[in-house]
C-alpha cells in the first residue's frame, strides 16, 4: 500500500500545482485585454441618463463593486478569497445575475452530456479497434478508413451533419435546445422524455468522433500486442483464442487509458463547440454568449470550471490507472 500512497501523493501534488497555475492564467489573461468592462455595463445602464455627474457616480460605483480601482495583486487576492467562498462576482452581460448563478444553471447539462458520451465512445471505440485488429479482413478494411474519416471530422462538422440529416431532413429529433422550448423544467414524464429526445444528437455527435479516434489507437496497439511473444507462446500452449484475446485486450488497453487522460482536454473542447451547434444549454453555449458579450468574469469562471472538470477527470483516470497497472505499484515502491 506504500507504493499506492506515494503514487497518489505525487498525482495529488501535480493536480494542485496545475490548478494554481491554471487559476493564475485564468485571472491574468482576460485582464490584460484592452477595453473597459465597466464601460460596457455603463453603456447599458446609462441609457437615458442625462446627468453627467450621475453617470460618473455610477461608473465609480461599479468600479468599486468589481474592485477594479485597486492594484492588480490586491485584486488577485480578493478574487482568490471570493472564489474560495464560491463567489465569482457578477456577470457583465447578464447583470445583475451572478456568475455562480449562470454557471449553476448550465454545468449539469454539460456534465450529463459529456461524461457518458466519453465513456460510451471510449468503450465502443476500443472494442471495435480490438475486433478489427483480431479479425482483420473486410471488417478491418471498412472500419479503418471509416474511423480515420470520423476522427478527421471536426466535432462541429459531425454535429452539423447529424443535425442536417436527422433533425432538419428526417425530422426525427429536434434541432436545438436541451428540452422543448414550450416547457418549464419539472419532473414530469413529458419533460424527461423531451430531455431524452433533445439529448440524442449532441450525444452521438460526440460519441462518433471518440469512437473513430479510439478505434484507430486500439487497433494499432492490439496489432502490436498480437505479434508479441506471449501471444505466440499462448497459442503454442493451446490456450483458447478467447482467453488470449482477453490478455491482449488488457495489455493494449493500458496505453489507451493514458491516451484518454491526455486527450480529455481536446475532447471536452470539441464537445463544447458541438453544444453551440445544437444550442444545448451547457457550458459551451454559455461561454459562446459570454464571448459574444465580452463578459470576462463569466469567461474566466467557465474556463476555470472546464479546467477543473478536465483536471478532476484526468486525476480519476490516473488513479484508476494506478490500480489497473501493477507495474506502477512496484515502480513506486522501489523508488
Amino acid at each position, binding site marked *: 500500500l506504500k507504493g499506492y500512497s506515494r503514487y497518489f501523493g505525487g498525482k495529488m501534488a*501535480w493536480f494542485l*500545482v*496545475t490548478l494554481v*497555475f*491554471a487559476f493564475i*492564467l*485564468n485571472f491574468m*489573461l*482576460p485582464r*490584460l*485585454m*484592452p*477595453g473597459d468592462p465597466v464601460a460596457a455595463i455603463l453603456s447599458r445602464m446609462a441609457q437615458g441618463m442625462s446627468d453627467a455627474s450621475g453617470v460618473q457616480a455610477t461608473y465609480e460605483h461599479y468600479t468599486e463593486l468589481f474592485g477594479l480601482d485597486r492594484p492588480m495583486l490586491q485584486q488577485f487576492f480578493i478574487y482568490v478569497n471570493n472564489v474560495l467562498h464560491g463567489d465569482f462576482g457578477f456577470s457583465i452581460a447578464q447583470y445583475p445575475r451572478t456568475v455562480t448563478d449562470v454557471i449553476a444553471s448550465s454545468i449539469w447539462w454539460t456534465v450529463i452530456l459529456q461524461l457518458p458520451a466519453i465513456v460510451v465512445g471510449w468503450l465502443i471505440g476500443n472494442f471495435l479497434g480490438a475486433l478489427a485488429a483480431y479479425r482483420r479482413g473486410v471488417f478491418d478494411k471498412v472500419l479503418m478508413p471509416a474511423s*480515420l*474519416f470520423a*476522427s*478527421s*471530422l*471536426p*466535432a*462541429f*462538422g459531425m454535429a*452539423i*451533419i447529424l*443535425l*442536417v440529416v436527422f433533425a*432538419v431532413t428526417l425530422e426525427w429529433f429536434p*434541432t*436545438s435546445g436541451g428540452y422543448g422550448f414550450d416547457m418549464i423544467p419539472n419532473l414530469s414524464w413529458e419533460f424527461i422524455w423531451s430531455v431524452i429526445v433533445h439529448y440524442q444528437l449532441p450525444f452521438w455527435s460526440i460519441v462518433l468522433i471518440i469512437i473513430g479516434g479510439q478505434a*484507430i489507437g486500439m487497433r*494499432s496497439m492490439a*496489432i*502490436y500486442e498480437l*505479434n508479441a511473444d506471449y501471444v505466440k507462446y499462448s497459442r503454442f500452449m493451446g490456450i483458447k483464442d478467447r482467453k488470449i484475446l482477453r490478455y491482449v485486450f488488457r495489455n493494449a488497453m493500458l496505453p489507451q487509458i493514458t491516451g484518454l487522460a*491526455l486527450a*480529455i*482536454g*481536446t475532447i*471536452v*473542447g*470539441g464537445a*463544447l*463547440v458541438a453544444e*453551440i*451547434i445544437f444550442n444545448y444549454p451547457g457550458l459551451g453555449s454559455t*461561454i*459562446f454568449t459570454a*464571448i*459574444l458579450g465580452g463578459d*470576462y468574469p463569466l*469567461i474566466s469562471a467557465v*474556463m476555470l470550471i*472546464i*479546467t477543473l472538470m*478536465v*483536471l478532476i477527470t*484526468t486525476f480519476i483516470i490516473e488513479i484508476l490507472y494506478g490500480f489497473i497497472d501493477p507495474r506502477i505499484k512496484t515502480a513506486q515502491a522501489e523508488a
Partner: protein
Amino acid sequence: MKHTLQQVFHSGRFVVGFSVFMVVLLIVIIYPLILPYPPLEIIGQGTFFPPGIYVNVYDSIGFTTHYTLMLDEAAAKRIASKLNEEDRLAIKEWLVASGVPEDEIDTTDTERLLDQWANNYDAKVKIPGMTNAQRNYYIRLDASLEGILSTEGAIIAAKNPDTGALEEKGTVEQPDYANVGEVPNVRVLPLGTDNFGRDVLTELVRATGVSLLIGFVAGIVATSIGLTLGLLAGYVGGLMDDGIMFVTNLFTVIPTIVLLILISFSIGQERRGAVTIAVVIGVTSWVWTTRAVRAQVISLRNRDHVNLSKLSGHSIFHIILADILPYIASYVVMALILQISLGILAEAGLSILGLGPRTTEVPTLGLMMYWGMIYQAQILGKWWAYFPVVIVIALISFSLNLMNTGLDQVFNPALRD
C-alpha cells in the same frame, strides 16, 4: 534518403493521402489564376442565393437575338414551375370545401383543375375554419395563376424620358430562347452566395488557402518549439530536463482549448490576424512533440555513434545536428503533419466561437462556418454555405491523417500488414 522516399511512396495510404492533399493545394493555387475574382467582394444584394448559373435578365430580354425553338414540354414545364404539388392539393382542398364533389377533382389534370378553379374561386367566400393567413395564400395563388394557360407573349416597354409614357420596344414570345453564350452578363455561382452575398466557391478556395497557411504556420511553430525543448530536455538532461518537463506536464494537463480561448480573447478582436491566430495555436500545442522527441533522444543519447562523436570532441550543436536529428527525422515529420491538421481544426474551433481572425480581412474555413452558423444556414437548409466547408476541412484533415498512418507503417514495422 532516396530509398526512404521510395519506400514511403510504396505505402498505399500515404499515396492516397498525399494525392488528395496535392489536389486541394493545386486547386487553391490554380483557381485564382483562372478566375481572379476578389474573394471577399460582396456581389449579392441579399443572403444565401442558391447555387446555379445567373443570367442577366435585362440583357437576355433586350439585347440578344431571340431564337424560336418549338419544344413539346415547354408549356407543361412552365405551368409546373408555377403550380407545384402543394398548390394543387391546396386548390383541391378549397374546391372540396366550396362544394365540388371530391371525385370530380383530378390534381394531375392541370387544364381541368384550373378550369374548376376559375369557375368556383371567389375571394369573398368565407370557408369555415380557414385562417386569415390561408385566405391570403389563396388570394396570392389566384393572382399567380392569372393567365397561366395563355399562349400570348409579353411586351417589353420602356419609359420615354421626355413624356414618361410607356413605349413598346418589342415582344417576347413564349417559344423564344436566348443563347447563354451570347448574353454578355452571366455569372456562374456553383456554390451560390453566403450571408454577406459573397461568391461561396471563390471565398472557399481562398479560405482553404488561408487555413492551410494557418495550419502550416501553427505546425511549424509547434514543431520547432517542441523539437527544441525535446532535444534540450533529452540530450542535456539534468536540471534542464526537470525544468522543461515541469512546464510540459503543466501544459499537458491544462486543456489546450482553455488556453486558446483565453489567449485569443485577450488579444482582442482588432489585433487578431490570420498569422497571429496561427502563432497562438502553435504556441499552445507543442507539448506532444516535446514529449515524443525527448523520449526518442533519451533512447539515442547513449548509442555508440553518439558516444564516439562525443569522444571526437564535436560540439553539442554538431552532435545534435549530425548524430541525433537524422534518427528522429521521420518522427518529427509525422509530428509536423499531425500538428498541421490539428492547427486547421483548432482555427475552425476558435472561429466558431467568434475568436478567429478578423472577418473583414481574410476568409478562413472557420470564419465561413461561424457566419453560416450565426445566420442559421443549417436550419434554413442553405447547405451550400456550410457543407462544402465541412467537407473541405474533413478532406484536408483526412488526407493528412492518411499520410501519417502511411508513414507510421513505413517507419514502424510492427504495424505493417
